């Protein structure tokens, strides 16, 4: 394995980790912050 191949693989791994991590974090964050769904009022008139 050449140095260039190794570096390319490392860069690809970092990118995949960043994008995968961003997907997981954003999904979990939006669920926790109630951003993922819309509701209608469930109490009396409000």
């Amino acid at each position, binding site marked *: 394995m050449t140095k260039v191949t190794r570096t390319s693989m490392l860069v690809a791994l970092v*990118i995949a980790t*960043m*994008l995968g*991590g*961003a*997907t997981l*974090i*954003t*999904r979990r*964050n*939006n669920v*926790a*912050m*109630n*951003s993922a*769904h*819309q*509701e*209608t*009022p*469930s*109490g*009396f*008139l*409000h």
Partner: protein
Amino acid sequence: MIQDLGLHRAARRSLLSIGVTAALITINHLSVLGPKAFGLGAVLIVGPALLLWWFKRTRSNVAFAGYLAMNLWVVIGFGLLKGLWKSTLPVFVGTLLSALSTAYPRPTLAPVWVEVSGVAMFIGSAFVAAFAYQLVRARWGTARASGLPASAAILAFGVIVAAYMVRDRDRWVAPSNGIVKIGVIVPTSGPYVVLGNSFLKAVQMAQSDLRGTKYQYQLVLVDVGQEPGQARTAILHAIRDERVDAIVGGISRFGQVTRPLATQARILQTCVCSVTSIGDGAYNFTNIPSPEAEGVRWVQEAQRRGIRNIALLTQDYPSIHGHLEALKVEIRRAGLTITDAQEFADSVTDFRTMIARAQALHPDVYYVEALNPQLDVLGQQLADVKIRNIASVVAPSVSQRPELFEATWYTDSNLRDFAFKTRFERLYPGTQFATHMMPYAYDDFNMIVQAFERGENPAVYVRNIRSYDGNAGTLTKGQGSGNFQSTPAVWEIEHGKPVLLSHQ
């Protein structure tokens, strides 16, 4: 010749990185610009391609400078300012900081595809910068790569992350001139006028009850009108021009409008709102019993009274659906039976056939829930056939003719001290005391006061609250949650007036 080959290769890589990054920028901007994002993408792809083509043909310094300027726009404008500052740092650093300390808000993130394309935009712009650097070296024939740009980039990145950490933290700021301005966001006209006015009175009562405070607390009434668009303008005015320090609100429809504005301004909104998604646990918090809590308490009371069979007579309305769904879950869990379930539209005024059908199955109790005027019409027709075994959730408390519901029991918000209601009615004769709202409005105001009196940022103070002894009993909130939970109580109409039967 060799130098030309190197230049061509660097130019190809540079252009390819710009093309890919421009595609990511287009995707990212679809949420904001809509189809116009394709126009932006076209400019970012065609512009550099034309400039590079011009440069390759003429070796024009103007074309080369123009090409580099486009690169700079992509790297700074989209990669750093948008991709890094608005997506990558909030997603990774913001989330980490909020997990470590409540002084940092959990970041408000866009949908997954927007955030991920934002992060990808930042990564793409790093490639654009790297290949642009290679192109510059090839252009001027610099053979040896310098380690300086990489070190400078790492240092700059560190500075940006540090700046983000400083900016992201919510800090205590003493109110100017010792006056805390609290925006009261409720409609004072239209269908919510009764609730809006009584909410305002509850907050005014809380304000007048303050004694010996360090700061002065001033209410800024924000009349939000009846429409969300109109409300947005009024709320923005309160935040930007009146410079309110915190907000108390009372109707979900307007709480939903306030949520992004309060988040953007980084001020606390507490809302007596049943739409739980308003409470994000960062700057927005809701405070009212959930339909599930009402359902649990209602079934407990039904079992205590030996009720086994229930007939449902309810109006087709979203708020009522919420209660009914939760109630049905608890009824099934407790093994009770629904003998009959009838729902009516808001145009129905003759309920006699429905009542007769429900009556034929001899239920132990009639669960009735509707809004006025139907509530009182239905109450009258039930009274006409001498049906007195009625139960509900909240509804009888908003009846204009409570005597129709004599002996009806229902769940509604708890009151730690019944004198609170008596005092309110004495202070504001003629103003309806909406039990499911007033104690929470009073408590919400006091939470804000406590934060300022303790010298804490109000949003951070409320984030840290796990339990609060308020007028509606003990409120609880899970870590990171934006919703206060409370246990409702059982009420009964006696001599035409609501009477609190039980405490938690």
